[in-house]
């Protein structure tokens, strides 16, 4: 890695971060608003009538799932919208004609996604303090699962951005893949409550490992071995990044 590579990565990251905070009403506020409503309705109103889940109150069970849900959707949508926007306006050519290496370009865009995922995740986490006492049982797991999740969904967003040819293509994956997988990934319920067949099916969903691992970091509750979760997600991240990098090197959708 050369000094020029570092400057290039810093430039894209700075540009992306600046964009996130410049249009914070679009990038940060909506998730915080939505998750606040979840806290009020599911955590406060409905949750208060439910018993404990996994040895904790329902709202305390809900917090890590909702933080993760925000991190997932925001890291994904930041990269896909920013990258596709640059393709659509052709401003991506600024980078393509430069000597910037594909891996440095990818790192810059993924960093932007991670920044937004983490910022929104923390904002939701802070809001949760109004509903349930804040507590982080295992800080390392808390940060590891938050970061690796943001990296993975930033990489998925980049992949979507490369394939997208029109604005409709940007919305397809979030609507038909991301949202169902997130809702079925254990945000609102513990996987252990499912019948054995559906529990087995659920383990094919990578979001289950993310939420489960993060929940362990947050409140010491886990339905699967944490180390296994961590390793699986590391592998998923490595594969997603390798695919992005391969397509980027080939100039897929970028160089004719």
């Amino acid at each position: 890695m050369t000094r020029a590579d570092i400057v290039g990565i810093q430039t894209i990251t700075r540009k992306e971060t600046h964009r996130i905070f410049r249009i914070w009403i679009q990038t940060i506020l909506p998730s915080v608003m939505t998750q606040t409503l979840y806290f009020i309705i599911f955590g406060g109103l409905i949750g208060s009538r439910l018993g404990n889940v996994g040895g904790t109150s329902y709202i305390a069970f809900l917090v890590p799932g909702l933080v993760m849900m925000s991190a997932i959707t925001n890291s994904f949508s930041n990269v896909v919208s920013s990258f596709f926007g640059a393709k659509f306006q052709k401003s991506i050519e600024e980078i393509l004609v430069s000597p910037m290496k594909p891996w440095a370009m990818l790192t810059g865009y993924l960093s932007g996604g991670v920044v937004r995922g983490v910022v929104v995740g923390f904002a939701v986490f802070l809001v949760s303090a109004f509903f349930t006492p804040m507590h982080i049982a295992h800080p390392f797991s808390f940060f590891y699962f938050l970061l690796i999740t943001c990296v993975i969904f930033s990489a998925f967003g980049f992949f979507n951005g490369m394939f997208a040819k029109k604005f409709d293509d940007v919305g397809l994956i979030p609507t038909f893949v991301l949202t169902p997988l997130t809702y079925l990934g254990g945000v609102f319920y513990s996987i252990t409550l499912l019948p054995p067949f559906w529990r087995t099916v659920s383990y094919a969903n990578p979001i289950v490992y993310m939420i489960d691992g993060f929940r362990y970091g947050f409140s010491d509750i886990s339905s699967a071995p944490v180390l296994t979760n961590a390793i699986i997600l590391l592998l998923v991240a490595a594969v997603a990044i390798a695919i992005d990098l391969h397509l980027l090197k080939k100039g897929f959708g970028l160089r004719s």
Partner: protein
Amino acid sequence: MSIALSINNLEKTYATGTKALKGVSFNVEEGELFALLGANGAGKTTLIGILTGLVKKTGGTATVFGIDLDKEPEKVRSMIGVVPQEFNFSIWEKVIDIVVDAAGYYGIPKKIATPRAEQILKELGLWEKRNATSRTLSGGMKRRLLIARALVHQPKLLLLDEPSAGVDVELRREMWLFVQKLNAEGTTIILTTHYLEEAERLCKNVVLIKEGVIAEQGNIKELMAKTGAQSLEDFYLSVNKRV
């Protein structure tokens, strides 16, 4: 004089089957202000796209200041500045940010890029607009912004793809002076334009591409004398009418 750009038998066939370049070869000497002419669809922008990495060639070789495009594409790109035909900057960003960020992609840190951007924007009359978003600029200002962005990393070879398209006469004349100044300072410049008066006034040598092949190349004055043309435009029309 050393060779700034050497192109040998360059070919490009798009996935659709369109043959944009069919074995183009020419050299540009260091320090030249060189004209690359041809009708719409002749292959000029494809050629520029290949040099800048936006288009993948399907045959031939290209070297920039002796560096092979195939072997060291990043090093080649670091020596080139490009002013594209179309506006291709983010419409939401400020003028100063567009120029400083462009430098960052070339590995130039912000603290070095910022004073450079200031100097270029002042020279191009855009300093007052530095904090305006690019979408609020006039057409002429947008063209100048493209030039500023292309120069911030101090390229040795500048590719100007129709830089004066849609620009009024006064601004075009100002642009000519700026381009001549850059060239006098040592930047090798390749200019594509549909304003043949522009090419005749600014350039010494020319390559005329027609349907992906070189129809004519050489010294502009000598080519005009050879055919008895009164102007580059007459010469251009006579070549393009040839079957």
